[in-house]
C-alpha cells in the first residue's frame, strides 16, 4: 500500500472526500450545541410589567423618576406617559428631567451622565452620541386603581393614558 491518494482509483478518492466532509459536518453539531448552550433560555432579571402607586398620587404636571425601576412617569393634563430611564447610547441611567412643573415636553431636559446625551420630554435626542430617542411605554390602570407600565409595549411618545 504505497500508492498515494492521487494514484488511487477515483472511487477511493471520492470515498475519502466523503469521509472528510462528513467528519467536518459532524463537528458542526457539537459546536452549535455548545454555542446555543451559552445563551440562557430563562433569565431572572425582575419584572417587565411595573406596578406603581395609585393614580391620584401623581399630581398633574408632576414628573416622577423611578431609579430602581428605570422608568420616568409623566402626569400631564391629558393623562399619563412613561418612558425608559436607560440611555439608548450605552445604557447608563439618565438624570431626572428638569423644567418648571407643568412645562411643555419640548422644554424639559434630561442628560445622561456617561457621555452627555441630551433628551427632551418627548424622548428626542437633542445632542450627544445617543443613536435614537428614549422609548415610551404603554401605561394602563390595574383593577385596584394603580398605574401600570408595560415595558414590553413601546408606544409613540405622544400617546397618553387618558382617565
Amino acid at each position: 500500500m504505497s500508492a498515494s491518494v492521487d494514484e488511487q482509483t477515483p472511487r477511493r478518492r471520492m470515498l475519502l472526500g466523503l469521509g472528510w466532509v462528513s467528519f467536518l459536518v459532524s463537528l458542526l453539531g457539537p459546536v452549535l450545541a455548545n454555542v446555543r448552550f451559552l445563551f440562557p433560555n430563562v433569565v431572572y432579571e425582575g419584572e417587565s410589567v411595573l406596578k406603581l402607586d395609585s393614580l391620584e398620587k401623581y399630581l398633574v404636571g408632576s414628573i416622577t423618576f423611578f431609579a430602581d425601576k428605570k422608568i420616568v412617569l409623566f402626569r400631564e393634563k391629558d393623562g399619563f406617559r412613561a418612558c425608559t430611564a436607560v440611555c439608548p447610547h450605552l445604557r447608563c441611567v439618565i438624570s431626572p428631567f428638569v423644567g418648571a412643573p407643568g412645562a411643555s415636553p419640548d422644554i424639559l431636559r434630561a442628560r445622561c451622565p456617561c457621555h452627555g446625551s441630551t433628551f427632551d420630554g418627548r424622548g428626542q435626542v437633542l445632542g450627544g452620541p445617543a443613536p435614537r430617542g428614549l422609548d415610551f411605554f404603554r401605561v394602563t390602570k390595574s383593577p385596584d386603581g394603580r398605574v401600570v407600565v408595560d415595558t414590553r409595549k413601546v408606544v409613540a411618545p405622544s400617546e397618553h393614558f387618558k382617565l
Partner: protein
Amino acid sequence: MVTESPKETGRRKAVSWIRDNRVVRSIFRRGYPDNDLDRAAVMFSNFFLHVLPARTHVHSLKPTYTWGLGIISLFLFVILLGTGSLLMFFYVPSTERAYSDMKDLQFVVSYGVVLRNLHRWAAHAMVAVVFLHMCRVFYTASYKAPREFNWVIGVLLWGATLMMSFTGYLLPWDQLAYWAITVGSSIASYPPLVGEYIRTLMLGGDTVGQNALIRFYVMHVIVLPGIMMILMGVHFWRIRKDGGLSRPPAPPAEAARGEAAAFSPHKTYMLVELAEGKTPMVDAQAPEEEVMSWPHTVFRMLVVFVGVVAVLSAVAYFFDAPLEELANPDHPPNPAKAPWYFLGLQEIVSYSALAGGVIVPAAAIIGLMTIPYVDRNPEGQGAWFTSAQGRRITLWSVVAVIPVVLVLTWLNEHYAVRILVPGASQIWVDLLNPGTILIALFAAGSLYTWRRTGSSRMGALALYSYFLTSYLIYTLIGLYFRGANWAWIWPWQATGLH
C-alpha cells in the same frame, strides 16, 4: 602550589556537599555549570531553561534594543497567576458576596490588601508593558519575515491581555466595575447583526447581574489564562524557530560572498542547524558575537525578575488599589469612566458608539494584523526606526497628529453634527466625528508617505505613529479633561467625583 587554609577547605566542602549531593544531583542531573560543556548541557536538561538556546547572540542582550519588555510581560503574567490564585481562596463570585469579600481582603485578611494591590498594579503594568513591547517590536521592524505570524500571535496576546483586564474589572462589584462593564458590554452590542448576540453571550442575560459576574469570573480565571498560556508557548517557541530575537542582518560584505558565506568557517554546526538553516546561532558569524546563555541570559532574566518584584512590591505597599462603594444599578457615577486603557476609546464612543466601539477598534486590529503582510520588504529589520529617514518620519508623524487631534476635538465641542443640526440623524453622527475623520486622514497620510518615499516601511512607520499618538492624546483627554456629563473640564477643575 597554593595551600588552602583549613577554613577555606571547610567552606569548599560545605558548598560541594550542597551542590553535589545525591538528591540535588537527581534533580539537576549535572553539577553546577562551571564549564562551557555543562553550561550548554544545563539548557538542554532543565525543563524550564530549555526554551532558551545554549548560546545567545549579544545583540539580543542589549538593554537598549529590547528594554526587556517581553520578559517583563512574562514575569508580570507569572506574578498575576500567583497572586490571582491566592485571591481566589477568599473571593466568591456572587453579587451578594463579592463586594464584602473585597472588603474582607482589605480589612480582615492578613496581607490581603497587599496581595490585592500586587494583583491590581501588576495587571495595570502588564497592559502598559505589553503595549510598549508591541511598540518596540514595531519600531525595530521585527514583524518582518520570517516573524510575520509571531507578530500576529503577539497582537492576539495583546487583545487577550486587555480582555483579562476587562473581565477582572467587574469582579470587585463596586460602582466603577458595574458601570464600566455596563458601558463596555453595550459597546459590544453595536456591531450590526451580531451585536445583540455578543452582548447576551457576554452577560448571560440583558443586564449586568449574577449571570454576567459568573461569566466574567470563569473567563478571567480559566478561559483567558488558558488561551494566553497556549499563545505564549507558541510565541516563545516561534522566537527560537525564527532564529532568536530580530537583529540587523549580517554585514553585506559577508552576505555578498554567496550562500556558503552564511555559515562561519570558525564554527561547528549541529546537523539541525544546517538542515533548518535558521536556528539562533547560524547568523552569528564569529564566536565573539555570541555568549553562553548560562550565565549571561539566565542571570539577566533573574535580575529583571527581582527588579519587577521590587518595584511592584514598593508600589503595592504605598498605593492601595481603589475600591468604590457597592455597585448601585440605579445611579451611575458621574462621570462614569472606563479603565484608563479604554478611556481613549470611550472618548471616541462619546462622539459615536459605532465609531468608538466598532470602526476604530476593528481598523486598529485589522491594521496591526495585516502590517507584516503589506509591508514586506526586509528594510530596517533590527534597527530602531529603520534609518535616519525613518526617525524623521516617525518624529514628524507624531508632531503632526497633535494639532490635528486637538483641532478636531475643539471642532467637536463647538460644531458637532448635533450642535449644528439638533436631532440630526445617526448616520451623520457616525460618519462625521473625530474618530472616523482621523481614520481617513491617517490612511491618506500613510499612503502619501509610502508614495513619496517609495517605501512601505515608511508608510507603516507613519501609520503606527499616528495611531499611537492620537490614542495617547485621547487617553489623556479622557483621564484629565472630562468631567460630569462628559463635559470638557480643565484638570484643576476636577471635582472629587471619579
